[in-house]
């Protein structure tokens, strides 16, 4: 239960980060160079996919009735936290996404 929720939050954050870095302005803000077009498309589509994954995890945690409600909340808050971090510690904001592989690893380990 808790693992699904954590995953939902992490995927929502990763998704928002993808969509955010898919914008020229914010890519520059973090990496100080402009973003190749292919990269931009890649970031955006991974972003959307991650948001969908977050929805699926919310539904797993809360069921399909309450899940979407939680999903909107998680998306909004993940986006808000990202915006706040991005302007003060841009690299940290990107680095946080590293928690996602960690979560995946935990999933694999616990399912063994």
């Amino acid at each position: 239960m808790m693992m699904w929720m954590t995953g939902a939050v992490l995927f929502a954050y990763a998704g928002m980060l993808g969509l955010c870095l898919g914008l020229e302005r914010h890519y520059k803000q973090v990496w100080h160079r402009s973003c190749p077009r292919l990269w931009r498309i890649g970031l955006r589509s991974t972003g959307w996919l991650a948001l969908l994954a977050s929805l699926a995890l919310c539904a797993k945690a809360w069921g399909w009735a309450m899940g979407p409600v939680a999903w909107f909340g998680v998306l909004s808050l993940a986006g808000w936290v990202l915006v706040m971090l991005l302007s003060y510690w841009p690299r940290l904001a990107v680095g946080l996404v590293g928690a996602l592989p960690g979560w995946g690893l935990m999933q694999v380990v616990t399912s063994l």
Partner: protein
Amino acid sequence: MKNTFTQSMAWLHTWAGLIFGWLLFAIFVTGTLAVFDKELNHWMQPEIPATQVSQADAARRAINYLQAHEPQAGNWGISLPSERAPGLRVSTGERRHGGGVQLDPRTGEAIEVRDSVGGNFFFRFHFTLDLPRNWGIFVVGALALVMLAALITGIVIHKKIFKEFFTFRPSKGQRSWLDFHNASAVLLLPFHLMITYTGLVIFMLIYIPAGVDALFAGDTRAYFQAQGNARMEQPRGLARQPAALVDVAPLLAQAEARLGPISGLNIRNPNTAAARIEIRPELGNRIALAKGQAMVFDGVSGQLLSDVPEWRAVPLTQRVMVGLHFAQFGGYPMRWLYFVCGLVSCLMIASGLVLFCVKRGRKYASATADVSARRWFRVAEVCNVGFVSGLLLACVGLLWASRLLPVELIQRESWEVRAFFGVWLLALLHAGVRPARRAWAEQLLLTALLCIALVAFGGFEDEMRLGVAACALVLGVLLGLVGWRVRHAQPVQQKARAGRQQEAEA
């Protein structure tokens, strides 16, 4: 009037946002706190022990107590200990709120518990502003409409919703306040719209009674009966025949299997042949708010007399919307989501209010502005401080009052409420006599200090009280940071530059 559509929308957003934003902020803060109303209740009544007693045992003890002390009462009410409310309360009569006796769930003995408005105060204030109930509901409803209007006009006047979706540029004076206001509003827009709209739906029959009036000729009881909420008729004579009460434990188990966790029960006409046992579910077993629902059993034979009614599509829709607002479903993780979303909403409103003054600050601070305009600006400034940081101070003041007022004080609850409004009034006066920036810093830092010092009241052996204290600590530290920032931020040149830049853009 203003020339273009966008300009009139901006005008409406600015002025409605300012004038009604003060009260809207209070409504949002108390609503956010009311997410944890029962936890606050528990914190504010430290005499109630946290225990692990099964509901069946607790119910038996409660009934034993009532048999011993109130055998003749026409109605017994029992609130059972549950995850969020570990107390066991028994009452008689029809009063739904307050009153009653707290029992120790382990022994069934009455315990002395201080009277306290508890977190319920925030809940009540949230939808009535502590006015007489119906007046309050109308005022808050009107404010909710203004909120809705502010949201819509906000969307209209925000020209770059998607382009600036993730944009926040700090330390740039007015630009930063606007960015923050926008980001908090846009990113949480689903929440803002949902919470405001569903808030209106709760009392839709009070706001728009025409439908029920037309269909049921104004007879609201007939309307509720048509929804399947009819109270069962009981032959009068039976209520005078004595009869032994059935054991409630199997009934509780049956109701729990059907409804999920149970919050409490009512026994009408106990110890008579007409006895009826109504068992109520917790509110959070599904999204739709189950307030007022109960399974009814015969109190002598234990037979199920009526099940909870299935709602038809339209009432169900309303119940789901109300449930979305009440946030009782989904357990603690959902509660935290609502709480944090609520906090960001409060920040959004507060930043909008501050933005109003930041934007006009330079214009009115100069000696050239005319006197009455300057005076009005000062009023806005004072109200901003008094209604934002002042309200926060009042809220934490209420928690302090609940612990500091003498336990044996008569009408203790109303003294707590007086303390709340007293602190708020003092904060407004304080804002009136101090320069705005000083007033902000002093009130924010005092609030932070009081929040952090709540930890001193202890109660850490109890998970719920520990949660309240930890949350107060975190909020206190954050408020302290804000206060410190306000105190030490110098009104930089940048501010003027950012302002000019924006004027050039516009």
